C-alpha cells in the first residue's frame, strides 16, 4: 500500500514536469537567451563599458496567464534592445541591467511586482504592458517619482502622473490619426463608419475620428453601429453605407466582425476602400480568410514587419537571430518595447543619468528630457513626447497587397 502511494506521488511529479517541459518551452528559451546575453555582457563588461556600475531598468507584464502573449513579446523586444545597447557600450557608459516581473495581468500582482523590482534596485520602469495594471502601477510610480514608460498601455488614464509616458498611441488618438491619414492622402471624399457601440475601444476611436474628420473637412456620410450581440449580420449597416455612397469605410473594430462586413459588402457588389484601426492587425492570419476579399485593406499599426527602413530591418533581423524559435512574438508589442528601451536610452543620455542616481532624481531628470528627445524607432520616425506623456509620431499604415502585409 505504502509503496503504491509513494509510486503514485513520484509519477505525479514526473507527469507535472513532463507537462512543464512541453508548456514552458517558449519561456525557457527566453531564459537561455538572457543567459547567453549576460555571458556576452560579462565578457564585454571588463572592456567596453566606460564607467563602473549598472543602470537598472525594470519591466512588468503578464508572462503567464491569458495575456502572456503580450508580456512575452514585450520582454523579448526589450531584452533585444538592452543586449544591443550593452554591446554598443551601454547608456552613458554604464551597463544596463533589465529584469521583467510577471503580473498575470492583475493590478494587485503588478503592484507587488513593482515592490519586488524596487527591492532589486530598479531605477526606471519600462511597463506595464496591459492597461489596468498600468494604471495601478503608475499611481505607485507617482509616489516614488519613478520614471515610467509603458510600451503598450493604451488606456488614457495609464499615464496620468507626470513621470509616466507611453510609446503606443492612446485608444482615442487612433481616431485622430486615422482621420488625418485620410485627409493627408486624400483617400476619399465620402466616408462611412461602422463601429461596435458595446466596446469602449471602438467607441473611443469613433468619437475622436468624427471630431477630427469635422475639423479636417471630411464628409462622413454614414455612421452605423452594431453591438457584440448583433455582430454576425451587417446587412442593414452595409446597405446604409452603400446607399449614402461612401467611397471609404472606416472600421475601428476587431478583425473578426470586419471580415464579415467585407464579405457581406462584396455579396452586395459594394467594394469601397477600407481603413481599420490596429484591431484589424491579424486579419490575414484568420483561418480560411479569402485573400481577394481583404486585398487593398489598410489599417493602422505601429509595426509592419516587411518595412524596409533601417531601424525595422535591424530590429527584425536582430529578433529573428536572437529568438529563432519565437518568431511569432515578432509583433507590435515587441516593437513597442524595443522603441521604449531606446527612448529611455535617448532620454537618459540627454539628461546624463548616472548609475548611482536615486530613482526619484532620475524621474525628475527624465521627465524633462523625454520632452526634448526625438527617437527614430521601429514604430515611427522622429517620435517626440509631450509633457502629458503622449507620443507624437506619424502613424504607420499597413496595406494588404497580393495577400501580404506591406507598409503603405
Amino acid at each position: 500500500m505504502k509503496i503504491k502511494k509513494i509510486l503514485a506521488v513520484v509519477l505525479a511529479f514526473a507527469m507535472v514536469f513532463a507537462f512543464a517541459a512541453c508548456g514552458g518551452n517558449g519561456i525557457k528559451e527566453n531564459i537561455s537567451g538572457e543567459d547567453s546575453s549576460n555571458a556576452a555582457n560579462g565578457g564585454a563588461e571588463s572592456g567596453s563599458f566606460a564607467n563602473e556600475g549598472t543602470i537598472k531598468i525594470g519591466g512588468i507584464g503578464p508572462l503567464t496567464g491569458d495575456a502572456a502573449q503580450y508580456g512575452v513579446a514585450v520582454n523579448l523586444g526589450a531584452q533585444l534592445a538592452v543586449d544591443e545597447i550593452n554591446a554598443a557600450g551601454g547608456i552613458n557608459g554604464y551597463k544596463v541591467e533589465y529584469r521583467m516581473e510577471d503580473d498575470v495581468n492583475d493590478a494587485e500582482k503588478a503592484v507587488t511586482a513593482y515592490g519586488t523590482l524596487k527591492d532589486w534596485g530598479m531605477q526606471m520602469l519600462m511597463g506595464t504592458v496591459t492597461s489596468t495594471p498600468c494604471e495601478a502601477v503608475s499611481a505607485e510610480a507617482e509616489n516614488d517619482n519613478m520614471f515610467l514608460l509603458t510600451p503598450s498601455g493604451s488606456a488614457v488614464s495609464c499615464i496620468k502622473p507626470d513621470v509616466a509616458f507611453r510609446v503606443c498611441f492612446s485608444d482615442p488618438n487612433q481616431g485622430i490619426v486615422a482621420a488625418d491619414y485620410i485627409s493627408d492622402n486624400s483617400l476619399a471624399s465620402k466616408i462611412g463608419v461602422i463601429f461596435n457601440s458595446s466596446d469602449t475601444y471602438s467607441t473611443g476611436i469613433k468619437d475622436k475620428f468624427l471630431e477630427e474628420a469635422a475639423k479636417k473637412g471630411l464628409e462622413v456620410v454614414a455612421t452605423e453601429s452594431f453591438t457584440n450581440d448583433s455582430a454576425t449580420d451587417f446587412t442593414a449597416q452595409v446597405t446604409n453605407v452603400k446607399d449614402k455612397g461612401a467611397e471609404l469605410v472606416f472600421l475601428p473594430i476587431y478583425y473578426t466582425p470586419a471580415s464579415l462586413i467585407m464579405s457581406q459588402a462584396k455579396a452586395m457588389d459594394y467594394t469601397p476602400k477600407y481603413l481599420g484601426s490596429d484591431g484589424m492587425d491579424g486579419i490575414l492570419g484568420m483561418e480560411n480568410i479569402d485573400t481577394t476579399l481583404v486585398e487593398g485593406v489598410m489599417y493602422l499599426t505601429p509595426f509592419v514587419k516587411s518595412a524596409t527602413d533601417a531601424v525595422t530591418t535591424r530590429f527584425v533581423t536582430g529578433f529573428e537571430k536572437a529568438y529563432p524559435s519565437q518568431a511569432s512574438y515578432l509583433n507590435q508589442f515587441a516593437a513597442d518595447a524595443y522603441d521604449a528601451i531606446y527612448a529611455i536610452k535617448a532620454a537618459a543620455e540627454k539628461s546624463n543619468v548616472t548609475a548611482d542616481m536615486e530613482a526619484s532624481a532620475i524621474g525628475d531628470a527624465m521627465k524633462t528630457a523625454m520632452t526634448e528627445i526625438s527617437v527614430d524607432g521601429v514604430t515611427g520616425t522622429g517620435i517626440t513626447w509631450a509633457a502629458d506623456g503622449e507620443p507624437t509620431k506619424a502613424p504607420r499604415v499597413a496595406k494588404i497587397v497580393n495577400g501580404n502585409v506591406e507598409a503603405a
Partner: protein
Amino acid sequence: MEKNSNSPLVKKSSSIRPATKKNLITYAVVVAFFVLFQTLSATGNLKNAYKALLVPICIYVIMAVSLNLVVGVLGELSLGHAGFMCIGAYCGSFFSVLTKDIITVTWLRFTLAFVVAAVAAAIAGILIGIPVLRLKGDYLAIVTLAFGEIIKTVVNAIYIGKDSKGFHMAMSTAGLGMEPDGQVILNGPQGISGTPRNSTFVIGFILVMITLFIVTNLMDSRTGRAIMSIRDNRIAAESVGIDVTKYKLMVFTVSAAIAGCAGVLYSHNLATLTANTNNFGYNMSIMILVYVVLGGLGNIRGSIIAAALLYSLPELLRGVRDYRMLIYSLILIIMMIVNNGSFFVALREKLKFRLKNKKGAAAESKEAV
C-alpha cells in the same frame, strides 16, 4: 487523567474554556503577526515586495474567514464569494469617489464606505440566500457560481455618471447623455478609477480582528451551535425545532457583509478597480475556497494561516523566475496530500499521540519529584 488535573500546569489552563483558549491563541497569532510586520515596516527593515503584500494578505484572510463561515460552519459549498467582494469593492469605491470632495475627513469617509459596502453586500447576501435556501449540495454551489458571474458581468455593463442634473445610468457612455460638466464614475469595463487610496495595514489588521471577533463569537453562541447542527444533520436539526431557513439566511448575510468590507479594503488599496475573472470571477472564488479547504473546514485559525501563506507564496517564489507558477501549484498539491491523505493523517495522529504521551510522562515525572 485524574493525576494530570492535579498538576499545577494543567490546572491553570483548564480554568479557561477550551474554545476560548483556542480563540485567544488565534487572536494572539494575528496580533503577533501584526506587531512583527508593523515593527519591521516602521523601522524600515521590510522589503518593498513584502510591504505591498500586507494589505492584500489582510483582505484574503478576511475573505477566507468569512467563507469558512458558509463552507465550514454551515456546511454549504459556495463558489461565488468573490461576487460579494466585488459588490463591496464597487459600492465602497463609488461612495468614496462621490464624496471625495464633500467629506474631507478621511477616517469618517472610509468608515462610511465600509458601512455602505457592508449593507450593499448584505442585501446581495439576502437576495442570493432566498433562492439558495431551496437548494442543497451541488445545486447550491452552481447557483452561487452563477451569481458571482452575474455580478461581474453587471458591473462591467453599467455606466454611471453624475452631472449638475443628478445621476445618469446607462449601458454605454453615449447613453449617459451627460452635461459637459459631468463626470463618469463607473465606466463600464474600465471600472472606477481615482478611488482614494486609504487602505493601510493598520486598518486591515483592525478589520481582521473585527471579523475574527464576529465569526468566533457567532460560532460559540447558541446561534452558532444551531448552525452547526444544520451542517451535521439537517433533519435532526429541524426535528428539534431549529429554523433552518433563518439560520442559513443569517450566515449568508453575515458572510456577504464581511466579504463586502474586504472588497472596500481591496478597492481602496489600488488606484484602479476593474472586474475580471482573476480578481472577482470564479478564479478568485475558488482560490478563496482553496484557502479555506487547506486551512481546514470550520477551522478559523487554519483559514488565516492558509490565506496568508498561500497568498504570499507566489510572491516569495519570484526568485525561481519562470518556474514560479509551476512550483506554486506543486506546493498546493503536496499540501493537500499532507493535509488530507490517509497516510499523512495516520502519521500525524501517531506523532500527536507520542507527543501527548511524552507530555503525560513529563507531567508524571514532575509530580514524582
